[in-house]
């Protein structure tokens, strides 16, 4: 079975024009969605953070400053593109592209509405996990290709973080997958009569922390770490290439918010409003929580980041997986509302015990 005919199965039967029309329509929708959402995200972040910091945020360009992201984009596009002499030109050029593509790919399996997605892969979650970490390659290429020590340090930090945080992230997803019995994103949304944030509170928390670390949102924004590494991996980028990285940063945040919405917040499901609007509203709420944490928390250190992944999140994820597996195996037929109570209790106990037992690693090294 070749790829086209395989994908054609996923298309709703009544779709006019067959596979290619479907492909074209959703590709355009996804690209427009990502670009518009990124602009919205930038606006929400800057205004939200502004209000949290007792200032207004951008409010000059257009009504309520809504056009500020457009103005920023225009400005950055018109800027000169500077490539350092010592840079590896090809790698330097290729990095933003490689970083950006996987983010768009994630949206291929995100259902905007019942059945409204580019392709309902039956391995949707696996696809997301596999694809989302590819942008790290782009980031590392940027760090290496720039020929700058700050960039290299930032890129190394990012690789370390992503490699570590993939594991608790995947384990947290598996907890959900055990309940649904399917890897398909559509099936996961269908299975959420109760949003999985209630059934899997610990899983949600782990996934949220791991996702923040993976996309380098504060408090895990070590790869940019503006106070330490000036701008981290994109120190040497300017103009359009910088814009691409900026886009990647927010597109990743939107992608992760969309994934969290799909997996834990019952995706497009909700009363009264149209499903796609529910999806967007939930995505924005999750993104706002990311902005909120970014505005509040200081940045962790690289060894603390690692310690958090391996000594706290990983055991907690395993416990979560274990409890979920037992629940599904032993009581497959009882109402999930019972699991809600049990799992919240498990989460509270796990966090309480885990936080007491958690010892971060050494800080100082003998030199």
């Amino acid at each position, binding site marked *: 079975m070749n790829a086209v005919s395989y994908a054609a199965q996923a298309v709703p039967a009544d779709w006019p024009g067959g596979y290619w029309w479907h492909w074209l329509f959703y590709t355009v929708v996804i690209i427009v969605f990502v670009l518009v959402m990124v602009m919205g995200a930038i606006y929400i972040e800057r205004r*939200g953070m*502004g*209000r*949290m*910091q*007792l*200032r*207004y945020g951008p*409010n000059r360009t257009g009504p309520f400053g809504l056009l500020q992201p457009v103005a920023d984009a225009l400005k950055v596009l018109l800027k000169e593109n500077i490539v350092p002499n010592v840079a590896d030109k090809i790698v330097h050029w290729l990095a933003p592209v490689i970083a950006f593509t996987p983010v768009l790919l994630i949206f291929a399996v995100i259902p905007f509405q019942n059945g409204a997605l580019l392709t309902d892969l039956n391995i949707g979650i696996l696809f997301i996990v596999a694809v989302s970490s590819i942008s790290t390659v782009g980031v590392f290429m940027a760090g290496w290709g720039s020929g700058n020590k700050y960039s290299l340090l930032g890129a190394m930090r990012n690789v370390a973080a992503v490699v570590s945080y993939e594991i608790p992230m995947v384990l947290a997803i598996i907890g959900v997958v055990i309940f649904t019995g399917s890897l398909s994103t559509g099936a996961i949304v269908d299975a959420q009569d109760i949003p999985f944030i209630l059934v899997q509170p610990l899983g949600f928390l782990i996934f949220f922390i791991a996702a923040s670390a993976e996309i380098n949102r504060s408090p895990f924004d070590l790869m940019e770490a503006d106070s330490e590494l000036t701008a981290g991996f994109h120190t040497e980028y300017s103009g359009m290439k910088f814009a691409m990285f900026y886009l990647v940063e927010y597109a990743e945040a939107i992608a992760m918010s969309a994934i969290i919405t799909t997996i834990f917040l019952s995706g497009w499901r909700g009363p009264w409003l149209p499903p796609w609007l529910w999806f967007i509203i939930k995505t924005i709420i999750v993104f706002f929580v990311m902005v*909120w*944490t970014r*505005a*509040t*928390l200081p940045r*962790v250190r690289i060894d*603390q980041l690692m*310690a*958090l992944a391996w000594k706290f999140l990983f055991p907690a994820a395993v416990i979560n997986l274990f409890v979920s597996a037992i629940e599904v195996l032993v009581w497959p037929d009882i109402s999930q509302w019972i699991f809600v109570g049990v799992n919240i209790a498990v989460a509270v106990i796990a*966090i*309480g015990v*885990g*936080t*007491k037992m*958690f*010892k*971060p690693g050494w800080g100082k090294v003998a030199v």
Partner: protein
Amino acid sequence: MQFKFFGIGMLKGLAVTILHIFRRPSTSQYPEQRLNISRRSRGNELIWDREKCTGCATCAKACPQGVIEIVTSTDMADNKYKVETYRVDTGYCIMCGLCVEACPYDALYLGYSFEKAKYRRGEFVQTNDELKESPQRPASGYFHPDIAKKLPKQTLLIEKATEKRK
């Protein structure tokens, strides 16, 4: 990261930041919303009163930057000094106000206005009548309490912060 308080410390921080959304921002929207500056404002220009000036050059001696240039000649008819040139390079002036303090005849004032950026460096050098007081160049109350009383009251953030949010 040691969770001494089970992560409650972080939650407290989150609570504080979210509550700040509902507070009134303390920034003001500058070109539309102008706050009154201090009555004793040391603005970036010097105002010179030709009538009161006797040409004693105390200001020039007090100036730490040496930007005041004063040329006098003797007026035999009135038996007093006549100021021929009074030139201030406000580009070099650091607005310390020592000249105003030093002037024994209250002939010098600092400017109350702001937004006095110039396009060329040469325009900063002001001579004689360019230094006079005019509606565009009001005098500040620095070291002149009588002038200070007439100027509008300074807007304070302390008072603004206790205002109700509109």
